[in-house]
């Protein structure tokens, strides 16, 4: 699709990007504000970044969130890649419809339902099996369950594009299925697995609602800390934290796109 852009499309683009970015940009701007009042400019200062580094609650929340997100991403990549394989390569096996439904439904399931239902499961499991105790591990299980759906989508679309004749050729030449997976398929799909890993990490790092339901005493993730502090009111420290977050995400997205762009070119 090329040709001249109608004025309507141009103005909608400008307005749309203004809408998406002005709240974020003003948040970044006020994170360098000397004044405690978030909307009154009191001169340039980085003191809120210093205060953030002293905030033990936020720092330990961030560390817990990183650990949870890392484990979640690893579990979700394994489960999601296997699920994508089953859906793309195993044909019409019995129970495929239920499986496909269970894989995609978590993508759109409201978080409050996922959170509530998993908590009720964990409570029932504690009553019957005596564990797992609620805390970091239950959050990881909950996050991995919905993150798997995202990984499956990403890996599935890559697997669907692969040329099956490569695998057939390797099989004809006598390669065992496991070797085909290791030598042919994995090298071709690892960028999709990496993208899925990053997506799962981000989703887990970001989640407030499901973590609040499935967490136990003492396990407070970064979003849970941020949420309770935002409920108390706006604070310049949260502006500083948000700025760091946005800078990290933007850098990663730019690098990832550069890498993807080079590979394609």
């Amino acid at each position: 699709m090329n040709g001249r852009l109608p004025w309507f499309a141009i103005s909608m683009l400008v307005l749309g990007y203004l809408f998406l970015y002005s709240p974020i940009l003003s948040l970044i701007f006020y994170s360098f504000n000397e004044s405690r009042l978030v909307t009154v400019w009191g001169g340039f200062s980085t003191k809120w970044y210093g205060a953030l580094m002293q905030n033990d609650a936020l720092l330990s929340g961030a560390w817990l969130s990183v650990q949870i997100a890392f484990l979640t991403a690893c579990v979700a990549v394994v489960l999601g890649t296997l699920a994508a394989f089953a859906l793309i390569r195993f044909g019409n096996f019995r129970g495929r419809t239920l499986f496909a439904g269970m894989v995609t439904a978590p993508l759109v399931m409201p978080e409050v339902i996922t959170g509530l239902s998993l908590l009720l499961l964990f409570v029932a499991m504690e009553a019957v099996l005596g564990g797992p105790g609620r805390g970091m591990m239950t959050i990881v299980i909950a996050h991995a369950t919905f993150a798997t759906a995202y990984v499956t989508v990403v890996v599935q679309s890559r697997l669907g594009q692969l040329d099956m004749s490569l695998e057939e050729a390797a099989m004809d030449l006598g390669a065992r299925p496991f070797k085909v997976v290791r030598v042919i398929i994995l090298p071709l799909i690892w960028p999709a697995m990496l993208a899925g890993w990053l997506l799962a990490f981000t989703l887990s790092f970001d989640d407030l609602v499901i973590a609040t339901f499935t967490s136990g005493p003492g396990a407070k993730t970064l979003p849970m800390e941020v949420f309770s502090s935002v409920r108390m009111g706006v604070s310049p420290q949260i502006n500083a934290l948000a700025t760091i977050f946005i800078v990290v995400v933007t850098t990663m997205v730019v690098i990832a796109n550069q890498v993807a762009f080079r590979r394609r070119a």
Partner: protein
Amino acid sequence: MRSPAKSFSAVVRRLNQPGAAGRLTALAIPYGWLALFFLLPLLIVVKISLSESVMGIPPYEPILRFAEDAKVQIHLTFSNFGLLLRDNLYVVAYLNSVKIAAISTLISVVIGYSMAYGIARSPLRWRYLLLMLIIIPFWTSFLIRIYAMIGFLKDNGLINNVLMALGVIDQPIAIMYTPTAVYIGIIYSYLPFMVLPIYAALERMDPSLLEAAGDLGAKPWKAFLRVTLPLSMPGVVAGSLLVFIPAVGEFVIPELLGGLGSPMIGKVLWAEFFSNRDWPVASAVAVAMLALLVVPVMMFDRFASRYFRGRS
């Protein structure tokens, strides 16, 4: 009917094919995980929504009870659902959630379609940057973006300051803690989910179709209505489902941006669970929400599986 021995030997034969055991494991692991951590929890929610609530840990009565003469009694109660229908609070929150989600989805379609169309029609060297600017908010923390919205909408926030500086208004307009703030928050948060699928649909379109329409004498707007729009409908449907379904159950946005005037069902569920500690009623609210979403979720499922199969 096949005899058990025959089907057993069929299973053995299949397992002896190269890679069959590997395939079985590859399927069993994610299948088992999802059955245990996705399907079973939903069944437990349905079960608890039919239990009576009591004070205690856990705060509900078991459905199966062992009576003295070794009989199993089943106790089911629909009183939790009766409460949802009787108490106006739940009905209002339910209808309000549907209304807010539907209107937000419609507005997102209009804004999202125009943006996706603009990106798809822009010169190649711009398209890369414009797309990345859609993807960055998509990866940025949801909570932080809602927090940014507070700074944007509040009485001494950016919107009011700009409007007052321009002389459009001389007193701040109260947007925070109104239903308007909830609409803005939902559209702001979910807009990338609308733009990306519509853009993907527009990008896949064959440009020669539009040339053909033009050669046959169709005016640009007519070519848009009869060629571009129908071909991009899958993107519009996918985007709408990706916005509507989570928006119905949204908790964080009405909690942080909305006031008491815009109850939403996700907030009600949260309050029942965390403040009232009434697990059966919270479960009944969840079941009622699922009943509302079952059709859109199944639509999304069919849509997604057809989409990925079509590409394979």
